[in-house]
């Protein structure tokens, strides 16, 4: 490793982990760097960037026998969007990727980066499907909600989307125009046989996830719409969830 540069490309995963261990807070993992550079001034980053985009984290998408899907953390978003396993298993995800940034940006940005940078749209969808994040450090898989404070001190290797079987999922984003816009609101839902998981991100607030029984009786949990934001966005999130759920309920009746 060349210590004069504030940028390193580790040879493999172990190398990455040991570089990070030696640099501690002076180093940070980065992948596409599309989000990370938003925080840099003209001078560049304060920490040494450990670029994990070229490491072998396995295939972009892998189907386990259980029906769950394992996604490589450093897979670029556009490659995931076009991956036939994803369009087959989780078309909602593939379609939604079309609303995350632009094609050129998605060729550079990774799934792991989106889930960890703090305001990614995909977090909302991955929360409702109860995706697990597997980090290199402890080998344990954690739910999105459990990852707090310094999200990226450990190396994220893969994301596991449990078998969705009969669940039906929806996700929707309101931006400032039809495509290529920052999100104002993102909502998602995953309706199983007996329960439903709903998640909302209002503007820059953290994702709120709520689980309740299905079919639903009674109003949506107010907790979903908390956060320091204008009333309008709360109304939009409310309408979107209610609308999608009503459609699904109608399908159930039919």
């Amino acid at each position, binding site marked *: 490793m060349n210590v004069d540069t504030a940028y390193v490309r580790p040879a493999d995963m172990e190398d990455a982990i040991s570089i990070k261990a030696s640099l501690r807070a002076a180093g940070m993992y980065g992948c596409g760097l599309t989000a990370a550079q938003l925080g840099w001034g003209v001078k560049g980053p304060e920490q040494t960037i450990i670029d994990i985009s070229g490491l072998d984290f396995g295939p972009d998408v892998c189907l386990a026998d259980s029906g769950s899907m394992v996604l490589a953390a450093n897979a670029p978003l556009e490659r995931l969007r076009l991956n036939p396993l994803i369009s087959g298993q989780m078309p909602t995800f593939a379609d939604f990727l079309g609303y995350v940034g632009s094609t050129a940006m998605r060729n550079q940005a990774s799934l792991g980066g989106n889930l960890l940078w703090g305001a990614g749209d995909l977090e909302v969808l991955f929360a409702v499907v109860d995706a697990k994040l597997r980090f290199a450090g402890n080998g344990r898989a954690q739910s999105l909600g459990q990852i707090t404070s310094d999200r990226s001190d450990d190396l994220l290797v893969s994301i596991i989307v449990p078998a969705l079987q009969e669940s039906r999922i929806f996700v929707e984003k309101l931006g400032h*125009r*039809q*495509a290529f816009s920052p999100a104002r*609101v993102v909502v998602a839902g995953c309706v199983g046989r007996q329960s439903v998981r709903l998640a909302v991100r209002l503007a820059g607030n953290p994702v709120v996830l709520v689980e309740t029984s299905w079919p639903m009786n009674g109003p949506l949990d107010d907790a979903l719409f908390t956060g320091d934001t*204008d009333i309008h966005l709360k109304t939009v999130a409310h309408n979107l969830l209610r*609308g999608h759920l009503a459609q699904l309920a109608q399908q159930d009746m039919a």
Partner: protein
Amino acid sequence: MNAVTGLEEKLRGTFRYLAEGQPEGTLHGALLTSPLAHATIRRLDVSAARSLNGVHAVVTAADVPSDFLMGTAILDRPPLARAKVRFQGEPIAAVAAETKAIADAALALIAFELEPLPIVSAPRDALDEGAAKLHDSGNLCSDFIYSRGDARADFEDCAHVIDHTLTTPRQVPAAMELEGGICIPSPTGIELRAATHSPFYTRSLIASMLGLPDKEVRVIGSPIGGSYGGKEEIHIQPVLALLAWTARRPVRLVLERSQSMAFATTRHPFEIALKIGCDRAGRLLALTADVLVDNGAYASFGPEVLDTGMECIQSAYAFKSVSLRGRLAYTNNGVGGAFRGFGALQTLTAIELAVDILARKASIDPLAFRRINLAGANDPGPLGQAIIPQPELSKVADALSALPVWRDETPSQRYLSGTGYALVRKGEGFAGGGPNGASGVLALTLDGQVTFQSSLVEMGQGLESTVRNILLASFDLGDADICCATGSSDAGADSGPTSASRGTQIALRLIRAGKMPFLEKLYVGAAEILQVPMDALRLGPGGFYQRMAPQNKPDLSLSDLAASAGEIVTRIDIPGIETTQAGVKVHTLFTACAARAGVRIDRWTGQVVCTGLDLLPACGPPISPLAFHGQMTGAGAQALGFCLTEHQPYEEGTVMARNFDSYFIPTIADVPDINVHPVTWLAPDDPVGIRGAGEIGLNAAAPAIANAVASALDAAPTHLPVRPEWVLGVLARQGRTP
């Protein structure tokens, strides 16, 4: 035939814009801009910056003649802030240095102290008694008053009266090419390569600032990577010229997007309060309008924009009486300026919304209502002025009614849909007083090409291909025999600004006027060389043919003619088509256009999508059909942005949208297919035979989209762009929330 010249080079990236291809040794220019919106400059010390190694020039207001101010009707703007700053992002100083890093370091060494002044953030507050004054003359930059008939009395006779107030966005031209350029000094003068619509005007302005004779300043103003009016205003040319002239070295200065978003002139936000009424039969009787415009910090084109907006506020309709008032107020919100549509877009959108509201109230179909009230073919203009007759208005109305019906959207729980119409007209060229006349040159150059030379500029609108088509239609010549030289002050003649939709009209009239005298010279020259009478000759592809003998090679090629006779030059001057009228600025030549728009409204989110757009411009037969279509579709997309996505907000003088992550111009996913249905018929005796295509599509598309929203919601927008918040609010009030 290409819509624009250089298309392949543009796509392959080998086409050179003016700030590219800098000569060896060019210095890097950079600006120090004001962080505050309104302040007194207490101290400005550039000595440390000047003495930094690698810095070749640091300029401030002290380097500009103290009486040098810029503007059109009102001269009030210094190129670098003098004593006061009046908007955030106003240039205070500039440096030219060997590298970007040195330039940035030099900027950091400039010591300055700003003492804040109260910020004038709303035009209404600006006109209050006690408001802080931006300029010594006060905050009323200009105003407009006009009345005809007795509106108050006529309202009494109305069966239906409505009022409506519309506030329009501060739309940023946001061309992909940023404002900038390269300036190359010589011992006696400069060459300035930077986008402008008026090379000659820019030349004399820069020359006077530098104290140089005009001929020592060469201005190359095109090609331009998009302008839409944004680069019509003088932008950084004076600062760039100062830097290069001071440094005695070539300098390149290009704004960053965040600087441009604060510095570039924008479309003026208008607040338009209208009251209109009609009788039982739906005839429009009276209109009163009170218009208040946020001008920003300097006059720029504000007075002209206000005048044009007020002139167009009656759209294409005959009101019995009108009473109009408009005011333009200085504020600390950036600088408003020229932008395609030029004031008319704002007022036309307001009046077309009002007309629909009234039609609905009178229970008359909006198209029928428009027909009832259309101005007559030979009526005087909107302010009573003599205009070129507009018999095409009724043809446009016919074409609008005859559009094939759209397939109805399938009704859904979630979406509402609506269709809106508009029928408008706007003056072309400048109002009386001009500059409306123009000059140009037809020349047979030494290389044997018939060349039209003008100082008109190419900015993607297809001027060059249009001129080529006019030349081909005027002279029986081949593609290789003709040439179009544009865009610089090298042209032997000043053609005036390429703006206000006048470029094509001017080119056509110049070539038309010059054709006979120029041909005469060519025939005389050819007859002399071939020793035959003139009437034995025919000009054809490649040169002159003897009439009798059919052949495929000319008897005298154009290059041989030029070689023997020398350059053959005809200078052409045409007068403006204009009238003047006491007290108001008026146009004489008007362009009509209709539009139909469809929208879909999401009841869950309040989002509005434009699902279809038809444009029916009455511009005569398009000379370059692809370029013409392109002007219309591009205008349609900008109208969509105006109505649905674009706005530059200011909060207490602070620019809120600094880049495209917060200013949203439409993407391909936002813009539906835009269908263009040219109404090619103009009166046979029309003195021009065509109308310019630059702006009119925008002026019709925006009100049609706004009306489509109104029809979907049963409520006319009060603010543009339409915000989802407002849509949901309306639905909630109507009890139509999902």
